[in-house]
């Protein structure tokens, strides 16, 4: 089991890096759109998995591998914090506040939507 959780985490981390680079290539780096989209989409996916697990449509194993392993590693809190501090250091206070508030609000809404759809 441990090896599968780790491998799902490997996949999540690689996808986060690749997708993050692709998004910032498209949308620029003034706002950390990459992490923003990743954290919100990962919250939606974890919500879906949680709902499916609650209604016993997926096993405990799948829930841990894809939930804890993949979604956990795909999304990130430390980069989110680091990017916010960088915005504050650049005196881009409004961007920093909007980044934090929208990440949390939309992330929670996405997780809620995922649970609501599948539960």
């Amino acid at each position, binding site marked *: 089991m*441990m090896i599968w*959780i*780790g*491998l*799902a*985490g*490997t*996949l*999540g*981390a*690689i996808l*986060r*890096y*690749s997708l993050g680079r692709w998004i910032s290539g498209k949308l620029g780096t003034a706002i950390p759109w990459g992490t923003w989209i990743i*954290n919100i989409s*990962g*919250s939606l*996916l*974890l*919500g879906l998995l*949680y709902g499916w697990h609650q209604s016993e449509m997926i096993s405990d194993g799948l829930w*841990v591998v894809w*939930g*804890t*392993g993949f*979604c*956990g*590693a*795909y*999304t*990130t*809190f*430390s*980069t*989110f*914090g*680091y990017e*916010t*501090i*960088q915005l504050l*250091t*650049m005196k881009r206070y409004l961007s920093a506040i909007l980044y*934090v508030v929208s*990440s*949390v609000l939309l*992330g*929670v809404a*996405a*997780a*809620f939507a995922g*649970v609501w759809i599948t539960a």
Partner: protein
Amino acid sequence: MKELLYIGAGGFLGTLTRYALQLGIPSANVGFPWAVLLINAIGSLFLGWFFTIAAPDKITPQLRLAIGTGFTGAFTTFSTFTLDIVRLSENGMWTKAVIYIVASLLAGLLLCALGIQLGQLMRGKPSQDGTA
């Protein structure tokens, strides 16, 4: 392409370290997600320090990606944080949900800033990295 190997290896270890801590810290019993709060706080402190001390001239880009983006990125998590908020709210534990959000954000941001300060102190100069 080679950089993906480094990030993947870091992600593997970061994910399993987080999983071990989640199993080790009994959050479910006390009804408050202590494990993830602690994981995100420690990871934010570490990333601030690491990205500051491990400046591009001090470390290979591959190692920076493996430890920073791979390990620390996968060690901390945002989706479990948001799902935990939904779970607390569903159970009517609104106060706990609000405390969890505020504590996570305050700890994450303050500790990340502290980590950057520490890194700058250890590098021995007031760095202006990242400023435009």
